């Protein structure tokens, strides 16, 4: 007897850290207590995507979306909705700027605007159960590829699709597959660069299936899934999925009696950003330091253990099964002429709706930030967005109608990269953001090549001086000059992209740099050494009644005052840490 209701509770890391599994357990308990467990099924799915309002749950088959759930909500939900059939209004999603709840998930713009290809099974299955993947046409594409297509026909469909690498560089996947197929050397290897955890947490079998199809097309025998050590849930799920696939005969010898054999193992990273770079991943899998290799030879000719290797991002592999099921032409119809298909984006920072989305390439930044992202909270002004990760270029608000695809992002000085979209409002200082991004790149530089190792340090020193009020106008020319050398001569993508935040902020926000240097002021008040803090005596005494919280918390003991009396800051002792500003609920601390 099929279930009349299925409760899809999000079990992605973000919701789990907000206790979604406690909610799920309470729900299961209540359903069993009321003897409803034969008619109502509770399923913990992978990440639903709308992380900003978690924990979330979708009630199928009606598609009702609930948000911000806690175990306390369970009795009401069960009684009102699952027994009496009336959705609980106060737990439904209300779009920002409106009053009316939107009950159905697919009526909510955050979801309705998306096109799911790589994340096609999102929220629909338990990623730890292969049977649920199979019931969703899982491994049907592999079956088709092995029994009805030649390796050349598989390759043709990938080429027709126009799929480009989703790891950031956007290299045509079909061209890469062709090169590996044609290369000499056995055995051939496939590597999945698991720098992105979402697909591995949500639908790990889609990656395995994609790699199997690729192995058939290229003649590869072994594959490795590389995964960051910061992703324990993704690691657990891919290990489980590989074991399950092996048990069912989808991995191993003579798969589906086709004569084709392929197997996978997992290699865990040990904490180094550089290991997102393709040749670095290969070094890590070989048990060495993750220093990039000089190219040529490319990995397609000499990769893992010196053999032909196809390394692709996890999102690229997840795109392969639907290309085979639905045809390359189907994917080619989505996106733009040179950037076909979709891309997963992580919306983070100063946005009302944060989470993970998959959009057709070519959608504008405006649609991402406002229609899907819901706009900027707290009535603040949208200032800039950084796309592609910490070494992505920073795009100002006036370029909000830029289409997001490989070509247009490069034109404005940014890149697709990891697809992370960090939105910044008026409180962000672009000089400090550039300094912070460069600090990251400098710290993560492997040290192998001089331009990156020394150049990032030089640029960081200059930026730090500017944010501390010791900059000079000549520094701007120096920054641009050093950045040009580092971008053109570094040995790998870390060095070449490390300069993006610096060059784009100099291009679009030069006035902020000039203000820091000439006026010794930070317009956004983010560079604390350029700030002066004082306490408004009227606000402190009338609203705060001289509460003394700032005085007690000040690490330098720089605040003087008696209870019920206005307090003041001794500027000679003040270290400008900003603690008083953060703690004062009465807004008595003024920054100038």
């Amino acid at each position, binding site marked *: 007897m099929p279930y009349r209701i299925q409760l899809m509770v999000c079990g992605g890391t973000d919701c789990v*850290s907000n206790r979604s599994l406690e909610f799920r357990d309470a729900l299961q308990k209540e359903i069993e207590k009321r003897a409803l467990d034969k008619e109502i099924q509770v399923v913990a799915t992978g990440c639903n995507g709308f992380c900003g309002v978690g924990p979330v749950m979708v009630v199928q088959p009606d598609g009702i979306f609930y948000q911000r759930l806690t175990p306390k909500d369970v009795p009401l939900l069960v009684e009102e909705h699952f027994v009496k059939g009336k959705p609980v209004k106060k737990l439904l999603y209300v779009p920002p700027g409106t009053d009316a709840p939107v009950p159905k998930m697919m009526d909510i713009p955050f979801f309705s605007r998306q096109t799911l290809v790589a994340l096609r099974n999102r929220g629909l299955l338990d990623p730890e159960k292969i049977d649920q993947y199979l019931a969703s046409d899982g491994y049907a594409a592999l079956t088709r590829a092995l029994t009805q297509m030649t390796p050349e026909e598989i390759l043709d469909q990938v080429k027709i699709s126009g799929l480009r690498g989703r790891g950031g560089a956007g290299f045509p996947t079909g061209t890469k597959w062709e090169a590996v197929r044609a290369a000499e050397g056995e055995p051939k290897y496939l590597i999945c660069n698991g720098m992105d955890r979402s697909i591995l947490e949500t639908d790990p079998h889609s990656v395995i299936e994609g790699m199997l199809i690729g192995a058939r097309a290229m003649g590869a025998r072994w594959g490795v899934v590389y995964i960051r050590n910061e992703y324990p849930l993704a690691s657990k799920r891919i290990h489980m999925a590989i074991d399950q696939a092996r048990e069912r005969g989808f991995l191993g010898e003579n798969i589906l009696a086709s004569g084709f054999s392929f197997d996978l193992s997992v290699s865990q990273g040990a904490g180094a950003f550089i290991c997102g770079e393709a040749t670095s991943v290969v070094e890590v899998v070989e048990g060495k330091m993750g220093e990039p290799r000089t190219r040529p030879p490319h990995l397609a000719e000499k990769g893992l253990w010196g053999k032909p290797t196809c390394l692709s991002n996890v999102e690229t592999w997840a795109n392969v099964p639907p290309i085979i099921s639905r045809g390359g032409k189907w994917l080619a119809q989505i996106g733009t002429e040179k950037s076909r298909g979709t891309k997963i984006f992580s919306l983070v920072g100063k946005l009302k709706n944060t989470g993970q989305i998959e959009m057709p390439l070519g959608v504008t930044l405006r649609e991402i930030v406002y229609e899907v992202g819901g706009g900027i909270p707290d009535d603040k002004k949208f200032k800039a967005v950084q796309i592609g990760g910490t070494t992505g270029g920073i795009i100002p608000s006036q370029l909000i109608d830029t289409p997001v695809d490989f070509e247009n992002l490069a034109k404005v000085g940014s890149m697709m990269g990891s697809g992370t979209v960090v939105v910044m409002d008026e409180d962000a200082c672009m000089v400090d953001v550039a300094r912070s991004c460069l600090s990251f790149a400098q710290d993560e530089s492997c040290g192998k090549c001089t331009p990156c190792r020394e150049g990032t340090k030089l640029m960081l020193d200059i930026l730090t001086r500017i944010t501390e009020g010791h900059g000079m106008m000549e520094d701007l020319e120096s920054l641009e000059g050093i950045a040009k050398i580092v971008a053109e001569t570094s040995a790998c993508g870390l060095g070449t992209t490390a300069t993006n935040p610096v060059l784009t902020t100099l291009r679009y926000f030069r006035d902020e740099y000039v203000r820091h240097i000439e006026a010794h002021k930070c317009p956004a008040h983010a560079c604390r050494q350029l700030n002066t803090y004082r306490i408004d005596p009227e606000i402190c005494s009338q609203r705060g009644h001289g509460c003394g919280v700032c005085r007690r918390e000040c690490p330098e003991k720089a605040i003087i005052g008696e209870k019920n009396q206005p307090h003041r800051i001794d500027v000679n002792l003040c270290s400008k840490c900003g*603690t008083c500003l953060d703690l004062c609920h009465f807004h008595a601390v003024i920054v100038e």
Partner: protein
Amino acid sequence: MQLETVERIIQQHQAQKSALIAMLQDVQNEFSYLPQDVLKHISRTVGVPLSRTYSLATFYSSFSLKPRGRHPIGVCLGNACQVKGAGKILEKFERQLDIKCGCTTPDLNFGLQATRCVGYCGLAPVVTVGRDLHSKVNLNKVGQILKQYSKEAAPVKG
């Protein structure tokens, strides 16, 4: 006891050179750092120069040559967390624990590190304590986090 544990780890990976990183990960998880003696023993047993093992130990941020404390705290300073005030959260941990970032408290209860983006940007600001993930951390939660992991009345600045 330490030697037995290390031998077990080496044999679990069949003493393969290609599994060096995995061996060091197991040692780090077991002892919360990589003791010098252990690095020497692994190098000898696996048959690689100590310099190679040492280069791995110092290249990857998940390894430490000094104890990281019973509860190693990691404050993510990735861009999404920075934009949401992670820098101030790190400073508050430093004040409350009376140690600088990169150090461990004298009682070895807490260690404090700044981490690079851990990949949970939707939950920014993020703080990890061992394998636990704390999301949307603000200045008020710093004290709560420390209280949760303090075993006894350890000297913490209030």
